[in-house]
């Protein structure tokens, strides 16, 4: 974040990755929604974006490269931002993403250090894209799960951020590679609080539990568990598959927003009324960065 004056701060973010779906247009949309998400997670609005694309004509036909860029451009337009340029590099491996610039009011920036005891956390998308895309690569994902994951990944966090701006949000982040538990642990540490996560309240994509039980877990999930496991304690009744899912690295995951508990319930309800799969999933308590995962719903 770079403060320009008392009213405006610049937020800049960049993200790009290799294809996770076969359709180039959908891949472009997902990569763009993912890159734009960081700006929304900071409470900002995207203004401009620049394409980053690597491919070689030997591995990707020019029309498919065009479809990736079209997917990205459509998402950027949907976000109300404009593409102002970009750069293409010859590479055997296809990668696409965007560098995004946005603005935010310097006094209203959401960070993961803003959660306070007495808050509840709202998650705005269902979890499980890492497991489903792994199963897709093994041709083991049911169509319903595949479609739901793609739809979720290409959905902008814009609407969720817009609804959240009307609520007293103390802080937040977006859920990406570290998985829900990794990002929760980072938030708890940065905010110097403890978090109690209610596993039964976490919205899940279809078939995720069955695919997790079958071993379609991305390598990143194991890394997340190794890295964050020491800070997380599970109640004995939380099923093994569910524990895995909570560490599943997400592509273009939802926002995780911290606000006073009663407000959190109301915000989640407003989001659901707007068609988002949002839920209040965790409580924030005084503490030192520990995460406890319980079975059941937050009450």
């Amino acid at each position, binding site marked *: 974040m770079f403060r320009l004056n008392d009213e405006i701060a610049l937020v800049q973010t960049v993200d790009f990755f*290799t294809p996770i779906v076969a359709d180039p247009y959908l891949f472009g949309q997902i990569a763009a929604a993912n890159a734009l998400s960081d700006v929304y997670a900071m409470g900002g609005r995207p203004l401009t974006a620049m394409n980053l694309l690597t491919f070689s004509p030997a591995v990707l036909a020019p029309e498919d490269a065009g479809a990736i860029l079209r997917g990205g451009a459509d998402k950027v337009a949907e976000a109300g931002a404009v593409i102002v340029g970009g750069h293409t590099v010859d590479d055997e491996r*296809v990668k696409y993403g965007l560098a995004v610039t946005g603005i935010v009011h310097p006094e209203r920036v959401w960070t993961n250090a803003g959660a306070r005891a007495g808050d509840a956390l709202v998650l705005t998308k269902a979890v499980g894209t890492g497991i489903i895309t792994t199963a897709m690569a093994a041709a083991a994902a049911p169509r319903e799960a595949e479609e739901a994951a793609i739809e979720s990944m290409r959905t902008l966090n814009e609407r969720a951020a817009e609804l959240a701006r009307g609520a007293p949000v103390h802080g937040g982040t977006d859920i990406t590679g570290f998985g829900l538990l990794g990002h929760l642990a980072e938030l708890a540490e940065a905010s110097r609080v403890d978090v109690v996560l209610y596993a039964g309240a976490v919205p899940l994509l279809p078939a995720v539990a069955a695919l997790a039980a*079958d*071993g379609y877990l991305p390598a990143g999930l*194991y890394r997340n568990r190794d890295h964050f496991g020491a800070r997380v304690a599970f109640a004995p009744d939380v099923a093994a598959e569910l524990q895995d899912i909570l560490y599943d690295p997400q592509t273009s995951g939802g926002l995780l927003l911290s606000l006073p508990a009663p407000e959190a319930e109301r915000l989640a309800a407003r989001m659901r009324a707007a068609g988002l799969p949002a839920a209040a999933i965790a409580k924030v308590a005084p503490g030192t960065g520990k995460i406890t995962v319980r079975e059941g719903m937050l009450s």
Partner: protein
Amino acid sequence: MKVLDCRGLACPEPVIRTRAALAEPGLNALQVIVDNDAARGNVTRFATNHGWRVASESRDGLHYLTLTPAGEGSASADSGATAPAGGSPSGQAAGFTITCAAAEELINEPAAVDGSVVLITAPVFGRGDETLGAKLMSSFLYALAEAERVPAQILFVNGGVRITTGDTPVKEHLQRLSERGTKIMSCGTCLDYYGLKDQLVIGEVTNMYSIVEACQRATRVITL
């Protein structure tokens, strides 16, 4: 005991290979060798979930997973992996190793396609007996479709378009290639000349400019 060597393979490849190996009828034990925790966890889960008991032993940075049926008649058979119902043919007991190829992060990933172009100018492979030639063409395309890396494009010109049209015996192989990312292109002039334009059953129609461009851009061109 049959051994599946999955060293160097990234997820979900070890599960895909274990799934395929366990689907073989009459299998009574399988050893899977993996070199990372994610593969160990995933193969263990898959096998356990499909009615196999997994014993794991780790040494020298490798994990040796021994899969045996979970118990008397308790092996649940379902899609993807079938546990044996009873004893297995003893002739299969002699140990042999299936060596997995180098790691590909994702199947159907563009990296499985290399930069080569195959130019097919006749419906048969080589000069000589036509029946043999047709057979050879079919097995060439089959082997190509199963190769670790498939070509970026296959261009069918002149008599070559006879095997992308009508009742072609190689449609299945071309479909597999297409699914793996190879572009199947037939020369439009050639289709016209032989009156096959409306009989194309796989791939797309191309022209000489695109054929020239494809050949010039290719890392190598293999002409049949």
